[in-house]
Every structure is written in structure tokens, then in C-alpha cells.
């Protein structure tokens, strides 16, 4: 594995390595493998730099298991289930409050300790992430899979600002970050703001074909290098995504384009 591998897909890494600035943020959009590509990005940072992996739709064990499916070792990576933390500290509390407001509060319930002590700061997703970013002191890799969850539960401006913070830390420390986004579920202005601050935009797609799907990746944006745009057919091999060879004979598992 090259020491500067981004995804360890040479057909994609090579043009990017030469033209991406030192410290960058990528948006991984579309469907058909965005989560796997984000994991592959994280996997190739492990052992080289600290890797922070934020998941919003998988449990930590699910992420580790997905790594295990490809023989990747996730032990050198910090995996955090933001949705789980949010549920535990915000939604479950809101549920308890709604229940109490609906049916009333008894003296006995008043005496039971609250989830968070009176006066304690409430859980804040943005502060949680910024706190982790602030603790970094050198190169890093960060995956946020996905930013859609944050856009669902936080004000848009706050999420865009958070993305800027990630970019700022990446630029100042020489880090890199992959933010997974489904653009079609957000308004154009929000997507535009995120696309604008991304240095790299990768759009993935999966087209049904007979009994399989054609997987593809389009490099839509490389900051200052529009000529680096590229279309690349992908297959899933034993070590994750590989570029689909022209003859279609790569060692693929499933989802191999015909």
C-alpha cells in the first residue's frame, strides 16, 4: 500500500495526490457505496495518522464488523456513534420530558436524579465535534458519515459552520476529511454551501444491470483543477473498492458490473 494512499484506488488516488492542497475536505455524495468508500478512506489512514470516524446510522459494532468483512483492522481508529449519543442524551430526555409533561410529575419522581445534573450543560453535537477537533494537534483523517443527520437535527448555518471548522483544522494541521452527503434530500442552498467549501467532490452511483449493478465514481471537483474530473467504474474486491479494469475481469465479489 502506498504511504500516501487516499483510498488505495490508484486510478483515483494518483491524480488527486498531485493536485489536492495539503489539508482538504471531500464530499462523498450519491448512492452505491458512499459508506464503504468512507470506510476505505478511514482504513488507509489507520497506523499513519489519528483517525476519527463519526457514524450517524450504524452502531460502533456495525462499523467494526464492516471493517472485519474486508479484513481491515479498525482498532487504531476512534469510532463514535453520534446518532446514538444524540439519542441517549437528547431524544430520550425529550421523550421522558414529554411523558412527564403529559401525565404529570410526582414527588417520588422529583426525588429521582435527573439524567444530567441541574445546571449541567446540555449535550451539544456541534460542541462534541469541535471539542474533538480542538484536541487534534497534527495530521488526521476524519470521516463524518453522514452530515445528513446533522442537517436533520441542527440549524443549517450551524452545520455549515461545523464543516468550515473541519476544513480549517484540516488546513492548519494538514488533515483530511470525508463528509458523506445525500444532496437530493437537502435544499440547493445548503448543498451549494457545502460543495463550495469542499476541495474534492466524489459522486458515486449504482445502476442496475441484469442481476448486478454498475458501480461508478465521478470526480466532480478538484479545487482549482477542473481538468482533473474523471469517471471511473468500480468493483468491490476483497480489499474494498477497486477500479474496474477495462476487460471487466477484476476479482470482484458482488455488484460487479457486466
Amino acid at each position, binding site marked *: 500500500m502506498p504511504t500516501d494512499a487516499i483510498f488505495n484506488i490508484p486510478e483515483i488516488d494518483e491524480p488527486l495526490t498531485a493536485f489536492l492542497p495539503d489539508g482538504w475536505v471531500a464530499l462523498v455524495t450519491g448512492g452505491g457505496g458512499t459508506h464503504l468508500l468512507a470506510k476505505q478512506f478511514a482504513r488507509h489512514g489507520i497506523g499513519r495518522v489519528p483517525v476519527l470516524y463519526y457514524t450517524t446510522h450504524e452502531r460502533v459494532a456495525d462499523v467494526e464488523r464492516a471493517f472485519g468483512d474486508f479484513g481491515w483492522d479498525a482498532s487504531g481508529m476512534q469510532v463514535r456513534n453520534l446518532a446514538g449519543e444524540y439519542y441517549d442524551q437528547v431524544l430520550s*430526555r*425529550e421523550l421522558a*420530558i*414529554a411523558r*412527564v*409533561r403529559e401525565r*404529570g*410529575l*410526582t*414527588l417520588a*419522581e*422529583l426525588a429521582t436524579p*435527573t439524567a*444530567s445534573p*441541574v*445546571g449541567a450543560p*446540555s449535550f451539544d453535537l456541534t460542541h462534541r465535534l469541535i471539542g474533538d477537533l480542538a484536541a487534534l494537534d497534527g495530521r488526521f483523517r476524519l470521516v463524518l458519515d453522514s452530515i445528513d443527520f446533522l442537517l436533520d437535527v441542527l440549524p443549517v448555518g450551524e452545520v455549515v459552520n461545523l464543516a468550515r471548522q473541519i476544513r480549517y483544522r484540516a488546513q492548519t494541521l494538514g488533515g483530511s476529511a470525508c463528509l458523506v452527503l445525500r444532496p437530493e434530500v437537502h435544499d440547493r442552498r445548503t448543498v451549494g454551501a457545502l460543495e463550495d467549501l469542499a476541495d474534492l467532490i466524489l459522486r458515486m452511483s449504482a445502476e442496475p444491470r441484469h442481476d448486478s449493478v454498475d458501480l461508478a465514481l465521478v470526480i466532480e471537483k478538484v479545487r482549482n483543477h477542473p481538468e482533473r474530473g474523471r469517471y471511473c467504474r468500480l468493483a468491490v474486491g476483497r480489499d474494498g473498492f477497486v477500479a474496474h479494469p477495462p476487460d471487466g475481469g477484476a476479482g470482484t465479489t458482488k455488484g460487479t458490473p457486466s
Partner: protein
Amino acid sequence: MSATPGSISGAFAGALERCRTGIEGLDNILSGGVPKGNTVLVAGNVGTGKTTLSLEFLVRGAEVGEKGLFLSVTEASTRLIQNLSTFEFFRQELVHEGRIVFVDVPVLYEKLGLNRDELTSDDIDVFVRTIESLARETGASRVVVDSLTSILYRIRQPERVRDFVLKLSQVLNRNSCTTLLVSEIGGGPGPLSPHGVEEAIVDGVILLGNTRRQGDILRVLQVVKMRGTPHSRAQYVIELTPIGLLMAPHLKGGRSEER
């Protein structure tokens, strides 16, 4: 009942049921006590004895079988009980036996999700309903809110302030509770409550303050308003002693007043 100058007694007292405060001088002024179910604003600036008067009101009630509920907004109830222990009229058993129940309002806020800067109309309804259910559960016939001012910090719109005080008074009255609402006001002349609407809604106002006399600062008490009973509006000097609040007529002469 000993005769207190300025008190109105006998035939004027009427047939209204009274809630004796247990503070002898005050009961005399009120012709036997606060009319049951009334909501009374206990207004005054810092250090004038509002909390002490309110606590004594609950203790004296508990001693004659009237349960009390104290809703404390700014001071932890454990600390209040600690301070109360310095008074000879207080016994810890009253708390242990549930004859006086202390509730920390910040805990209530936390449980009800009222930790926002400004309470909505829905929040106000939930809050009032909860106070009512706690009064019912404890069987309280005497309730103290210390302080109303602290609660109203989160209710900024005047119409919501009016709505809250009105609803609170109504639900506690409906449950036969006689209620004291502590109101913190600044010194000097002016409204008897921070928003100026509270005193118009409540049934009574007891004003506490300070006055100077020959170099001393004296605490004074005055019943400004009490629906349902004739009462004196004279000013009384009060003293906070280990055996409770003592009152004496304020002898006028050579004083410069302040509140």
C-alpha cells in the same frame, strides 16, 4: 387574640374562614388571619424577612395540622432547612413526617424541560398544572413560592406574567390553598412587584421594608391589600427572633422612610 393598635376586629371580621399565619401581630391586623384560599404577595427588598415570614407561616400551619408546600427557586431546600433549624419554632420532624414538603424548582424545570430562557404559554400551563398536582399530592393547604420574581425572569411578556399569576392563583384557590408569593423589589417608592401587574391580580399584598429611626434601621411590615377582610394599613416594626417574627406598632416621629 391580643388587641393590636390599628387592628380591626369583631363584627368586621366577617364569616370568612381564616388561615391563621401563626404570627400573632399579623393575625390581629388581618382580623384572625388571611382569608382561606387567598393568594398573597409578600413583597420587599433584600433582607427584610420575606422568606422567614413565609417559612414561619408554613411551620405554624404544620403545627396545627395544615400541611405546607415550599417551592424554592433560588435556594436549595437542604440549605433552607439548615437555616430554618436555627429558629426555635422549627422542628425537623415537620419535614421528615411530610407535614412541610420542600421542592427545588430548578429540579422541576429540569424534569419538565423548562430550562429555556423564556417560557412559552404551553410551558406555563405545564408548570402551573405541576404545582397544582404537587399541592394535591402533598395535601398542602399552605403554599409558598419563593420567589415569584425568579420564576418571572423567564416570563417576559406582560400578558404571560398576568396569565401565569392568575392561573397559579386560581388553581391553588381551587385546591383550598392559601398561598404566599414572595416578590423581590428594589428599595424606594414604586410598584410592589417587578412587572407591576402581580399586585393587581393577587388577593393581598404584605409589604416588608426597612426604615431608619434615630440612626437604626428597622424592619417594617404593612398590609397594603387583603381581599375579603378589613385590615389596618398601618406600618408595624418587626423583629426576626429565634422564637419567630414579633411585631410592634411603629411609633412615628423623627424618621426618614425608605423601603
